[in-house]
């Protein structure tokens, strides 16, 4: 079960412990926001979700062992919150529709950087379990084992989801199989390749 916790931290109690916990939690807020953004695809919903997860984590702080992986723990809380919210609003598809329209409007902003919008849109077309697996491993910096813990599934399942997500994403980007008019197939992949090359040249 992961690396053994820092002994000094496990001895902390009361206010001192809360302070250490809170400092670590605050440092994780940007990451929680980013993960929530990829799950919901909507900035406002994402911040609501990230705030809920942050408070849940704070309320449950006594059950967290200091010195263990708080990032994975909070991501798991956020993910559970996301799916329970989704279940609750199962019938209010109206909301989903509105969020989708907002996303599309944002994507149609001509000033926005092209490749990222195409990627965002393509990501939103993936099944959520593939999307979350790819984000955790491909962008969140988690090992397959940690991602499996967060998603509550087997390591092999995460691996296959990540691999399917990568293939699907490439397929969508290459064929331009997303909802956007006036753009030829393959343009998205071209701009992503060009952008990635430019980025790695800068480094």
């Amino acid at each position: 079960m992961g690396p053994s916790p820092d002994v000094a931290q496990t001895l902390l109690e009361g206010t001192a412990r809360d302070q250490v916990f809170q400092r670590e939690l605050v440092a994780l807020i940007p990451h929680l926001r980013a993960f929530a953004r990829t799950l919901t695809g909507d900035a406002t919903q994402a911040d609501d979700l990230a705030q809920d997860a942050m408070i849940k984590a704070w309320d449950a702080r006594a059950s967290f062992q200091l010195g263990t992986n708080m990032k994975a723990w909070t991501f798991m809380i956020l993910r559970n919150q996301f799916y329970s919210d989704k279940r609750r609003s199962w019938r209010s598809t109206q909301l989903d529709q509105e969020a989708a329209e907002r996303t599309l409007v944002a994507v149609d902003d001509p000033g926005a950087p092209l490749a990222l919008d195409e990627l965002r849109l393509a990501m939103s077309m993936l099944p959520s379990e593939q999307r979350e697996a790819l984000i955790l491993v491909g962008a969140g910096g988690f090992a397959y084992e940690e991602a499996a813990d967060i998603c509550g599934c087997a390591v092999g399942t995460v691996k296959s989801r990540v691999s399917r997500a990568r293939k699907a994403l490439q397929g969508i980007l290459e064929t331009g199989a997303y909802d956007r008019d006036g753009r030829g197939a393959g343009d998205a992949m071209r701009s992503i390749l060009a952008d990635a090359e430019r980025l790695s040249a800068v480094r």
Partner: protein
Amino acid sequence: MDERRKGTAPLDEARLRQRAIGVKLRQMFDDVVNEPVPDEFLEILRKADGKNGEG
């Protein structure tokens, strides 16, 4: 580091594309990570902290 496309074997091309997608994916995520955190977050946390009291 500098492994340029030479033979353009299909496998290399596929790998190149996957790597490009990976780079953009991280960029997409890091863009949000690097955004300033809205004050609301800290306010909510402060309120929750106060609720539990210190004594």
